[in-house]
């Protein structure tokens, strides 16, 4: 098991080897169209130990963490947790914050709830 | 072999298994090549209710460090009600051992069906780990019958 795969598995707690490749997660995913790698490919690439491909992809920022894939996966693989672990590995690297506090004013409007900012910083920055 | 890494203690564990469920479960774990420590030695009995509490005390007396008794799941006994007797008898035995100051974890009752090879192996692994962590059984060991200082046993600290 290579290092990155090991980290993803440990952080997510996901049992990627349980996947039977049915495609339920990708059938479910609301962000599917906006992703280059889809939930089932996340699981498959992690199982193969190909985490670099995912780290370099924009797909890690498209997951909504809506947990529909986690809920519906017949094998309890929890793809959303895999995506989250990969994204965290990406943003935890020095200077790799996807979203910086300075970017926020341009993205906000008067109605945007604070919750959105807090969540976005959690998801996209360290 | 399960060994306590710190003390080098190698526990002796006796497992009583009923012929119909848990012995078959142990066979299945073998057929599936599911590993568990070699400290565990199995004695086959027709039903878990055949196990007289005296057998368990005898095992402790002769130097066993842990005894596990496996039967069919409640309701699934080949002899209809045997494992219910076991459950009651073992509750009594355990509370007596408790009273005597014997660690509660040294005796265990588990229900393992003939189809649960994986559960059997897992149970044995965890039991062996627990016993290794507990250290040797001293309170119930009958020193008169201790033949020699067995290999791997930790000599008395005192």
């Amino acid at each position: 098991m290579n290092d990155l795969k090991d980290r993803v598995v440990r952080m997510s707690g996901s049992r990627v080897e349980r996947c039977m490749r049915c495609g339920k997660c990708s059938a479910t995913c609301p962000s599917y169209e906006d992703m280059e790698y889809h939930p089932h490919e996340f699981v498959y690439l992690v199982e193969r130990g190909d985490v670099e491909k995912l780290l370099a992809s924009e797909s890690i920022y498209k997951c909504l963490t809506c947990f529909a894939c986690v809920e519906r996966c017949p094998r309890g693989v929890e793809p959303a947790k895999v995506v989250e672990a990969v994204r965290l590995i990406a943003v935890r690297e020095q200077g790799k914050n996807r979203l910086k506090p300075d970017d926020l004013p341009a993205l906000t409007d008067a109605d945007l709830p604070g919750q959105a900012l807090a969540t976005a910083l959690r998801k996209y920055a360290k | 072999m399960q060994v306590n890494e710190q003390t080098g203690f190698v526990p002796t564990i006796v497992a009583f298994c009923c012929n119909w469920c848990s012995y078959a479960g142990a066979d299945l774990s073998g057929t599936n090549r599911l590993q568990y420590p070699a400290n565990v030695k199995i004695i086959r009995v027709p039903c878990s209710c055949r196990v007289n509490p005296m057998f368990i005390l005898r095992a402790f007396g002769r130097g066993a460090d842990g005894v596990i008794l496996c039967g069919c799941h409640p309701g699934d006994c080949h002899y209809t009600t045997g494992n219910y007797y076991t459950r009651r008898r073992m509750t009594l035995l355990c509370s007596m051992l408790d009273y005597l100051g014997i660690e509660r974890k040294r005796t265990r009752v588990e229900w393992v069906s003939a189809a649960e090879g994986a559960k059997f192996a897992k149970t044995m692994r965890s039991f062996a780990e627990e016993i290794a962590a507990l250290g040797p059984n001293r309170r119930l060991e009958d020193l008169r019958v201790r033949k020699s200082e067995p290999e791997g046993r930790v000599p008395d600290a005192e």
Partner: protein
Amino acid sequence: MKIAYYPGCTLKNRARDLDRYARETASALGCEFEEIPLWQCCGGAYTSAKDEIATKLAAVRALAAGRDMGGRVVTVCSACFNVLAQTNREFLVNPDFDFKVNNYLKGDPAYHGEASVVHYLTLLRDEIGFDAVKARVTNPLKGKKIAAYYGCLLLRPSEALAFDDPEDPSVMEDFIRALGAEPVNYSMRNECCGGYLTLEDREAAKKRSNAVVRSAAENGADFMITACPLCMYNLTKNADEKIPVRYFTDVLAEAFGLKEGAAE
């Protein structure tokens, strides 16, 4: 009945109505929301990674306060509910988390998941009872077709939240019926609105909101109700099709006649 209340940040600024009407309607039903002193932001999102400890501590403090204030914490915002409930669940399934958190907090006494987290909707369903709600309604919303929007945060992961059936929930529909209105069943009610993606990729988020609102409109909803300020934002700001979206507490207050100049 008194119950510890965790309002959350958004309810203190952008979503004041959600907060105010929650307290007022609860008090009308004989239940007093007692705000947890010195609560901090829950973080808005629960990070599922096992090695994230620091980001969950604020939630743990709120939970520990809830334990000390009677054993329960009630929330109104979906996100706060989700974060608190998932954090609490972690104590029950992950001893390592328990150990690390308590090492950090050195709380006295240590916290081990003793509190329970309830959402105002489940409080209405399970304890106050929709019959009592119905009895209190003075201004029934007769003839209104209301689409309940659950989104993700109230429902999933269902194992940790134990809120309702994640695929076919009914608590909001029962709520709507209790107010004298007619619930609109539409299939997108448990799908994501686009969430925080609105900051990162507004176009992508728009697709989600559009799908939700279209589905509600197609089934003839007059307006939608939600418990989440971010859903509210996405559904009103991002969707091309416009139907009004209101907080469920707002609608509840209206039915109770607690709103000045109540509609109609």
